């Protein structure tokens, strides 16, 4: 660890640019973390706005606001933005801020790479949304209209929005891979003396598995969309049966990436939740080792279950059975996590500040995602659920209640540490209750319309689905506007507020709480020793 000390000696003489140049050139993990999180928050509102237009269109049967073509663009870009430009950057922002603080490292291992992996994101986000603007000037027919899944041959047939999305995905993928390399190298090489792998904070463990999954699966996605690109423009026939290809090949390649992607989005959150629960239960984390092994098990299982995303495509019976049972097996390590979270609470001394509320909300609602996921694994019942709103509700329980609410847990938990100011607790609680209630008002009806037979991705629907859709739209608008409270609360906290001590929370454990709040620009200049 002598390198770290040497770097520090230089830093005192470094020239620090101000204004925009500071942010463009920064290699500081805290600055980069802040940029990731800010970018994620902005894109969260961009993606949210798109889906509010969709929900407004679906408020009543009939076409009122948008054309079906534009509707298809909105749903696809909503998903791509939320997954690649909101949730993933938010998790990477956490990693940048927290991993060095938590493992006692002065910075990330590869600071310049770090800067680059962030600055690839804005161009990618622009590429993704630019076709909307181009269409206004009569160029092309708008953004990608195939849904976020790019299924061939629809994506071979569609307009230039698909090309833009392909390049955006390439750039986002490069950014993710570089970020992952950075995190792996940091965790493997820069832990404080005495911090063995089995003393590594669970958050870092969660991210470590995520990073490996990203490196394993992003290249497959990149390959798939490149094949798509050559099918579109260079006369290949990977996905065209007339040329000896197979449309289902695309689905295999896409979901080989797409299923692990779910855990890529969730593992950082699963790593974070035990810290929060332990802090507010004032009790050490229960089953640390079990959770580490569960993370590894989920990581492995995640790459061998992909075909459950297209059970209706007509797979051979042995494949159906294999993918059904392997999918069901995921419930076992997940159950270990739930058990450990609840056992961490058990016989603690709990208080319910906003981060704890979000963590508990996460556990309950993510429980619904897990349980509905279990029934979705059943091939025969899936024939009914698949492509219906039941699935839409299911994965929003996983990715909104699991992903987004998990991210909010982390923001409320760590924001006082990052800014040195306590957030407004009243606003935080209001935000939680509005979010939790309106989220359920939005998505519970979608389970029912799905069961009743409403397919997903349709801009208009039969009359028997009207009431549930109206309720869902009302919920979505409350949900969307409640997030403004969150943005306002974050802004207020950054600007000022009650000063907090280094150890923000009474029950907090871990290295990051030994630093002052906010931590100095360069922290852990001398590495702590973990016993």
């Amino acid at each position, binding site marked *: 660890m002598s390198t770290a000390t040497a770097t520090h000696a230089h830093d005192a003489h470094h020239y620090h640019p101000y204004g925009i140049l500071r942010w463009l050139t920064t290699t500081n993990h805290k600055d980069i973390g802040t940029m990731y999180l800010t970018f994620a928050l902005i894109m969260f509102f961009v993606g949210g706005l798109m889906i509010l237009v969709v929900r407004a269109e679906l408020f009543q049967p009939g076409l009122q606001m948008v054309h*079906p073509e534009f509707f298809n663009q909105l749903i696809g870009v909503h998903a791509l933005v939320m997954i690649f430009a909101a949730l993933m950057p938010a998790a990477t922002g956490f990693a940048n801020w927290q991993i060095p603080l938590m493992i006692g490292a002065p910075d990330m291992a590869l600071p310049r790479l770090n800067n680059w992996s962030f600055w690839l994101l804005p161009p990618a986000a622009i590429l993704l949304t630019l076709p909307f603007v181009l269409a206004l000037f009569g160029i092309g027919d708008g953004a990608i209209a195939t849904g976020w899944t790019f*299924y061939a041959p629809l994506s071979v047939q569609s307009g230039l929005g698909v090309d833009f999305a392909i390049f955006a995905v390439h750039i986002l993928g490069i950014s993710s891979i570089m970020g992952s390399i950075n995190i792996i190298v940091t965790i493997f090489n820069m832990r404080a003396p005495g911090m063995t792998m089995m003393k590594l904070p669970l958050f870092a463990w969660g991210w470590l598995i995520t990073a490996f999954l990203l490196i394993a699966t992003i290249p497959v996605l990149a390959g798939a969309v490149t094949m798509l690109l050559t099918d579109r423009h260079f006369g290949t026939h990977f996905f065209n049966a007339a040329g000896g290809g197979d*449309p289902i090949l695309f689905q295999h390649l896409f979901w080989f990436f797409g299923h692990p992607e779910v855990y890529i989005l969730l593992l950082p959150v699963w790593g974070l939740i035990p810290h929060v629960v332990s802090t507010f239960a004032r009790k*050490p984390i229960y089953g640390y080792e079990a959770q580490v092994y569960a993370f590894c098990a989920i990581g492995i299982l995640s790459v061998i279950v992909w075909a459950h995303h297209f059970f209706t495509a007509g797979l051979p019976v042995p494949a159906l059975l294999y993918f059904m049972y392997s999918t069901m097996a995921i419930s*076992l390590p997940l*159950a270990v996590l739930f058990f450990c979270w609840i056992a961490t609470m058990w016989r603690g001394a709990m208080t319910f500040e906003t981060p704890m509320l979000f963590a508990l909300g996460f556990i309950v609602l993510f429980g619904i995602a897990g*349980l509905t996921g279990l029934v979705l694994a059943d091939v*025969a019942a899936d024939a009914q659920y698949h*492509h219906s709103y039941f699935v839409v509700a299911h994965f929003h329980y996983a990715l909104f209640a699991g992903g987004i609410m998990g991210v909010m847990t982390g923001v409320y938990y760590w924001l006082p540490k990052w800014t040195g100011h306590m957030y407004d607790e009243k606003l935080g609680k209001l935000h939680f209750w509005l979010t939790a209630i309106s989220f359920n008002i939005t998505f519970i009806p979608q389970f029912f319309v799905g069961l009743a037979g409403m397919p997903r991705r349709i801009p208009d629907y039969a*009359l028997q689905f009207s009431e549930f859709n109206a309720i869902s739209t009302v919920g979505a608008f409350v949900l969307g506007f409640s997030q403004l409270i969150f943005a306002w609360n974050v802004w207020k906290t950054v600007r000022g507020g009650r000063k907090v001590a280094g150890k923000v929370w009474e029950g907090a454990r871990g290295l990051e709480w030994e630093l002052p709040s906010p931590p100095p620009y360069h922290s852990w200049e001398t590495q702590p020793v973990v016993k």
Partner: protein
Amino acid sequence: MRLRNNSGSALALDDWKIFDLEEDATLKGAPNSVPGIGGWLAGLTLLAPALEARADYSWNFPPPATPLARDTLHMHNQFMIVITVLFVVVFAIMIYSMIKHRKSVGAQPADFTGPKSRLQWFWVLVPFALLLYIDFILMGIPAFHAVLDMEDTKTKADMVLKVTGMQWKWQYEYPDSGIKFISTLATPRDQIANQEEKGEHYLLEVDNEVVLPAGKKVRVLLTATDVIHTWWVPQFGVKRDAIPGFLRETWVKIEQPGVYRGQCAELCGKDHGFMPVVVRAVPEPEYVAWVDKKKVELAAAAAGADKTWTKDELIAKGKEVYEKQCAVCHQANGQGLPPAFPGLTGSKIVNGPLLSPEGRLIPDSHLDRVMNGKAGTAMQAFKNTLGDVELAAVVTYERNALGNAKGDMIQPAQIKSLR
């Protein structure tokens, strides 16, 4: 509890009698009613899908019409009960802890981090064992049988129906009798645009229904011509993708005569939401009569190809065809929706030559486009789906209407010879 028997009939859910579908009337709401506060509370705990699985079905799958659908419904109800119980038990423990182990009631935090004693290990492993049992026995075994049942399309199949998905309609073929027709959305565009009151079967009605005999096992073969579509009738309990260039299959055995409605379930472009599936199941004798009638109609249409049509006849017929097949993209007035769906009014292609001087098809000409489509776009090869009369009529119509006035025409017999 007995598992599925060989005939694929229902699970005997004696243990679950309290959840019997038909008997309990107290919780029956009016169909499509807005759920009350009780419904919401139930929904919050996922109780609703299980408890509300009652006769009105607005909270659950629609009434099953095939053995597969009935099995799926039973299995689904059973699974919903299982996961509801899991949910309630797990979160009851959590909520108990949240109430008892809070700082404000003076709880002192313990410091255990894992199971120590044998008893503790026992309590840790019990839920794990229970989950293994639920996954692979309680749910896994019925699911296993259901998969085999669902994929057994061939045993004792009485007839075959071939379904071809195309943007944005379905073609149905009966290989046994040679019947072949296209089924498109019948809901008037004015209803969709909110200009007109919406009918009872809004978006779930077609011009030509598929007619199938009730009580017969029908093997359904699926394919597509352009992109992937998914054929889905919720009451049949089957959903299968129609994939261009490949054949997929499933089966239905509709128990009762009636009309069953569904729609395409895989995003297939602009009008994905507007390609319904309507199946009319009729008693066997009625089905035989329908087949005979349909054959006569087809023969008449084929005969039409050999007679000489006047231009006005062709234009009148062509308008009909255009509005059903072409107006979705090229619009009723021929303006199209550029750039994806070019306009026909004043189009260079439509106003180009009809045939070469030798009477052959000119590559990339109007007729070539209509007959063979354009690869890589939504423009499909209509020679596969339209008859000679319809092709001749629609081409003549497009050249002499929609603001075009080429003045020429083509006879069905010419189309026939060009095939």
